[in-house]
């Protein structure tokens, strides 16, 4: 959620009254904003860089306000004030219209086809006769930055350039050229560079280096020229120094270059509507019925009242001649309105969510548990009753956890691999619950022995028959950790689980365990093909069969497994699939 920081006093001045912090918090809440923090520049610097750095910094009180991610029109002081004032019915929803320059000729931006290879779209507008103050100027720059970070997706989708129109002359050309053919003095530099040199120069720039990748490997770079060949900007990296805007700028030329034309238009609309009462976009109109709003929200207001509510939300609305339908004007600032339900939400907000009467739906249904979860719940209770304590371990882990540490080859695990893990802890989805339990033991070595742990949860395995190529599998895993291996304890637990599942001992229809055919001396190195078995101590491992099918294993863990999980005592384990018992 973007956060907008505004000077409190400036905000109150614009709103025409002061509020206590609580009152303002309440107003924000109603309007769907959140007053996140009350602070000052001095506070922020002192928190981030220490008190000494903060000395002399401004202690003007700042409000940090969280704005919903789709309300680009609230990303600056101007937009916030406009939204709140209209909401409080202190002013009418603004109307925007386009004006022609006194010369009568609108500016033109010509897009050449070379741009298709790198950044195909561009839109532009002019703000005329603007008067900047320091605050307005700062807010103008900050809005650009907020838009760049949010809707522009860090300049990948859209990049904004603003220029002093009086220093350049149209028509403008948006084209793309090989980097060595572009040469200009970039913003805040004293000399000319080629684009190739610039990309090198900015490699170390803490701010700009994050945007270089957008065009870096492209054969041609985008560039905008004026009719005299002056470079306005090399989007999405940097503007030219020549046309930079200042407090004295009267006419602002705004260009947005983009890979997404819809977003470019949204961004341009935001820039012009926030900073000027003139705009080139006309209103769009929607009609809907008052009844629709009443039915969806669960209220019964007159059509007139609903039109009033919508108007309060900057959606100027009028009841049409039939008395049923409402015509709603959608200003260009409200790009979030794409369906009647968006208008319905505004009506509900204006009515006040907390004023709506809470009702109980008469939907009659009978509840059902998922059989797999029902069985899991029942088994968990009885495993705890059998003296085992429940662990809750992560579904994601490192490759090492499910392979090397268990003396297995990763290729034999059917593991699903994560493409973008930030750390090794999130390389794969677990294929067995055992590593999680062993790590839990390791983290609790100080606890009195014996330690008896279990977990019933899902592992993930590749499976070609599923639409996504993978499936979950519900497993029951238990470990016993003590000075002696306690195979009989884990064996007894297995017998108990079978008893709970109503499977009697015996071959064919019952359950039995069968020694793994590997005998002494079988290590992972000498028998790499026997990787499934290798986590256990040779000769101390058995396969479990129920109703004639293999459902898992139990045994004493291999000493190498024990030490790789930083354990020191013998440990026995049980690992079974419970899905066959559904």
């Amino acid at each position, binding site marked *: 959620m973007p956060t907008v920081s505004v000077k409190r006093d400036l905000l109150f001045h614009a709103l025409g009254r002061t509020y206590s912090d609580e009152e303002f918090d309440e107003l924000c809440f109603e*309007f769907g904003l959140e007053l996140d923090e009350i602070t000052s520049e001095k506070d922020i610097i002192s928190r981030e860089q220490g008190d000494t750095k903060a000395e002399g910094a401004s202690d003007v009180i700042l409000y940090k306000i969280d704005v919903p991610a789709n309300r680009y029109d609230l990303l600056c002081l101007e937009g916030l004030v406009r939204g709140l004032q209209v909401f409080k019915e202190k002013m009418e929803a603004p109307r925007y219209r386009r004006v022609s320059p006194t010369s009568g000729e609108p500016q033109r931006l010509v897009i050449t086809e070379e741009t298709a290879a790198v950044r195909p779209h561009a839109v532009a507008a002019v703000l005329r006769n603007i008067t900047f103050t320091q605050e307005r100027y700062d807010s103008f720059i900050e809005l650009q930055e907020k838009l760049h970070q949010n809707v522009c997706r860090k300049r990948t989708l859209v990049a904004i350039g603003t220029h002093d129109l009086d220093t350049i002359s149209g028509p403008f050309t948006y084209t793309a050229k090989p980097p060595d053919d572009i040469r200009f003095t970039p913003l805040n530099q004293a000399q000319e560079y080629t684009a190739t040199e610039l990309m090198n120069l900015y490699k170390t720039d803490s701010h700009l280096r994050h945007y270089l990748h957008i065009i870096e490997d492209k054969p041609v770079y985008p560039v905008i020229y004026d009719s005299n060949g002056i470079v306005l900007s090399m989007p999405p990296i940097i503007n030219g120094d020549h046309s930079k805007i200042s407090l004295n700028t009267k006419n602002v030329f705004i260009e947005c270059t983009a890979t997404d034309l819809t977003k470019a238009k949204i961004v341009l609309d935001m820039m012009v509507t926030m900073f000027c009462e003139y705009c080139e976009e006309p209103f769009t109109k929607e009609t809907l019925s008052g009844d629709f709003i009443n039915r969806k929200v669960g209220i019964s207001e007159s059509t007139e009242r609903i039109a009033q509510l919508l108007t309060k939300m900057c959606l100027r609305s009028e009841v049409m001649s039939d008395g049923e339908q409402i015509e709603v004007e959608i200003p260009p600032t409200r790009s979030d309105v794409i369906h009647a339900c968006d208008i319905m939400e505004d009506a509900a907000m204006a009515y006040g*969510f907390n004023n709506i009467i809470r009702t109980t*739906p008469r939907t009659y249904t009978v509840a059902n548990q998922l059989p797999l979860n029902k069985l899991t719940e029942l088994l968990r209770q009885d495993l705890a*009753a059998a003296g085992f304590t429940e662990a809750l371990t992560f579904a*994601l882990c490192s490759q090492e956890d499910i392979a090397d540490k268990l003396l297995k080859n990763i290729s034999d695990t059917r593991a699903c691999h994560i493409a973008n893990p930030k750390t090794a802890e999130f390389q794969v989805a677990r294929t067995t619950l055992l590593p999680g339990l062993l790590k839990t033991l390791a983290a609790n070595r100080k606890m009195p022995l014996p330690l008896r742990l279990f977990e019933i949860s899902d592992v993930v395995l590749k499976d070609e028959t599923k*639409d996504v190529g993978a499936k979950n599998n519900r497993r029951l895993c238990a470990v016993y950790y003590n000075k002696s291996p306690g195979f009989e304890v884990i064996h007894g637990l297995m017998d108990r689980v079978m008893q709970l599942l109503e499977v009697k001992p015996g071959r064919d229809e019952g359950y039995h365990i069968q020694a793994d055919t590997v005998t002494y001396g079988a290590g992972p190195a000498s028998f790499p093909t026997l990787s499934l078995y290798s986590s256990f101590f040779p000769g101390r491992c058995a396969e479990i069969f129920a109703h004639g099918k293999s459902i898992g294993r139990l045994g004493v863990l291999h000493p190498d497994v024990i030490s790789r999980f930083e354990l020191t005592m013998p440990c026995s384990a049980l690992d079974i699939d419970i899905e066959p018992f559904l």
Partner: protein
Amino acid sequence: MDEAGCGGCQVISAEQRSSKHWELTGEGCEIAEQGSHEARVFSSIPDEGMPQGQLMKLAFGKVGFSKAMSNKWIRLDKGHEGGPRVFRTVENIEDSVRDKLLVVQKGQSSQLEEKEKSELKKRKLLSEVTVKSYWITKGSLFSTTITKQETELTPEMIASGSWKEKKFKPYNFEAMGVAPDCGHLHPLMKVRTQFRQIFLEMGFTEMPTNNFIESSFWNFDSLFQPQQHPARDQHDTFFLSDPAQAHEFPLDYLERVRKVHSEGGFGSQGYKYDWKIEEAQKNILRTHTTAVSARMLYKLAQKEKFTPVKYFSIDRVFRNETLDATHLAEFHQIEGVVADYGLTLGDLMGILHQFFTKLGITKLRFKPAYNPYTEPSMEVFSYHEGLKKWVEVGNSGVFRPEMLLPMGLPEGVTVIAWGLSLERPTMIKYGINNIRELVGHKVNLQMVYDSPVCRLDA
């Protein structure tokens, strides 16, 4: 004392008594005998005075000099020929410190005022001594012969009836019992059981959420979440490299989803961008269980006749986020969904009220919020009596028509939904500040052993 002790035998009874009195310290005794340091300084100085250096060499010199100075018995002539020299200023003195100490020595300390005593205590001349003693009397069962007391009732005593003549050692009911040898359920899972119970009580059917790996299609696209949405970023979502892509979709539905995103339809303008199947095919670890809700609602829409449903799930979801004390890369999401004709926003708030009442939360209020697949969207806040403020307890909303209509659900059907995390209420319930102490292998097993039963409304 354990049960073998004599505390309750009542052969004798002992009453503890204590008394306090004042005694002279070693230094105090010396002064009682030879006079205070200041008096000895005074008497050491002859009429013609004494060099300060020489005075300071005396054992009592330092303390005595400053006290005598403050009593104005002596004076210091700093400019005296041959160095600073000390002279008497009065003829006679009264050594009250010594006098007082002598009073105490005679056992008449009560004659001194408390203030005087504490003054002398500060100078470490007096100390207060507590003497503890026991007053022994015959107990109610006083006897001069000793009978051996039995510790426990035995089968033999019951058979022979000999217990009637035996005396039994009393138990010490102050001691703790022996902890039973048992296993324990994990606190987070105990809370999960309670939430499941609440949904079942409210008539909600459990959804099959046992598929951690999901296609972007079901996780995002089917929910009308545009393909450039930040949640679909590498920074927020775990993508899979193997299996990297999903390969099977209901194709006619997929086409309707493509259309509503890129061109609009179903009363919507859409997002107007170039929707790509390659994005939808990308496999991820699901970022919310709403992906399963989408599958269930699609399945519901394929039925010949629509029947109202109430669904719930509680299962793991995954976010490629920065980890901290309250955020892990995986957590449990609780989700409730109701689909029926003509549901209203008032119904959503009503059902949330019922749900949270079962959790013991009755004060709710709703804040407008933004979520790509619900409109309206509301954050749910509850008043926390302990923190004395409103805290966010969940998210809710009405699924957008752009999500439901392409699935094939009838026009008049509204679907309301809400979600919250399982970890947050559990951390509040059990007073845990660091999520790693609760979830994952770093859990403190003692905490698991000690955790009470979970009654959410208590």
